[in-house]
């Protein structure tokens, strides 16, 4: 065992844990912290389901070691909604535009798209498709995901 003390912020909350160096960040989030909103699909960086924000940038949490997150700030899908009653505008748009069916890939899409929309408030369809190129969805055919992003972008711009 190669144990390290880990102190990091997730969704604004401070966490301190002991981890084995070979524990993946995705498994740490799910199994050690119970933040099971981050989904694990392929575990080798292809599907994008495990995407989280690492210092504000979307990354694959299955391609990082938990120990590498020491001292960093993470955001996961659990941190998006402002309350149990109030979804994030992007989540709301996914719901309304039917941007998901089974929902397994959704957390990865959301965490990829939140910073994308912050940088691109009025994205073209091509830009949206480019942005989600690293996320696989087997249900929707992506059409409704693109529409959900447009809907969210319109609302976020309107404020």
């Amino acid at each position, binding site marked *: 065992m190669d144990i390290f003390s880990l102190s990091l912020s997730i969704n604004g909350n401070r966490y301190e844990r002991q981890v084995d160096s070979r524990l993946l960040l995705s498994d740490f989030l799910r199994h050690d912290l119970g933040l099971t909103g981050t989904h694990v699909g392929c575990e080798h960086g292809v599907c994008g389901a495990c995407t989280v924000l690492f210092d504000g940038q979307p990354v694959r949490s*299955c391609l990082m070691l938990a120990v590498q997150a020491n001292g960093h700030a993470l955001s996961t899908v659990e941190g998006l909604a402002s309350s149990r009653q109030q979804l994030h505008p992007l989540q709301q748009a996914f719901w309304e535009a039917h941007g998901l069916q089974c929902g397994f890939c959704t957390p990865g899409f959301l965490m990829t798209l939140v910073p994308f929309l912050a940088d691109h408030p009025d994205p073209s369809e091509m830009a949206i498709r480019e942005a989600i190129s690293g996320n696989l969805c087997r249900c929707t055919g992506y059409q409704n995901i693109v529409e959900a992003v447009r809907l969210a972008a319109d609302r976020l711009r309107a404020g």
Partner: protein
Amino acid sequence: MPKTRGWEAVLYNSQSVRLEMKPPPFKYLAPDSLEQALELMAQYGEEAKLLAGGQSLIPAMNFRVVQPAVLVDLNRIKALEYVENSEDGSLAIGAMTRQRALEFNPIVAESTPLLHECMPHVAHPQIRNRGTLGGSLAHADPAAELPVVAVACGSRMKAKGPQGERWIEADRFFKGMFATVLQPGEILMEVVFPPLPPGTGWSFMEASRRRGDYAMMGVAATLRLSSSGTCEQARLVYLNAGDGPVEAPQAAAALKGQTPGPEAFEAAAATAAEQEIDPLGNVHASVAYQRQLAKVLTRRALARAFERAQITGN
């Protein structure tokens, strides 16, 4: 009782069960400085593996294809993350510079446009947020874009190890599939891209099944025009066309002295695709299809490079 998987154990048995882990055990070391990293690499030698962005190494470890005894993480060494323009117009890039940072760096776009052009093709945005220039080069995947561009640009690499510091030309750096001339204990520190000579056009093109997937074929092309408008020099380097970045020197040499145009490009494309590259074929593309892609991409890339050479030559 059936053996439960990790997540079931968590659901039904709360915290008492230790979960299975994907990578095999290793000793993890995260030095703060290059000096410390070099000391650790000298100490552990062949036992140690360097961790850069981890976008290829971590999956390989998850699959247990790679099982290093010691992992030396370079991510805390901020001194290896930089893009610097030097007086002669060349660009020095620290090995740990993130691919995403290169993609949006205006200096990169200005002085090494070929590198800039290939960046969006390097996997996906999430991967580029972590992936580094040096990591991709040291990994030496024959299907990767950055090694091909490094060769096409005539870049050179600075490495440092127990024997001291040395410079390696890009076309001598790669030594076959997932292999480079880096010695155990050596760290790739910097890559220098020389400026494109005036009148040089460039193009990077690839064909993949889906955006961001490994390309079935790809080419980096440069083409320099003489003052009379003939082709003075050309370079063609291919990805997924052999066991590393594959050059097509005969096709490039045949272009020399020619009037650039569809005929010359077609001939060069045929030579490169049929005689010089050595694609291996895979489940997504047969060897014949890869050669066909190489032919079409070469033709198009040379045409694009020619257009740009005419603009930059003015």
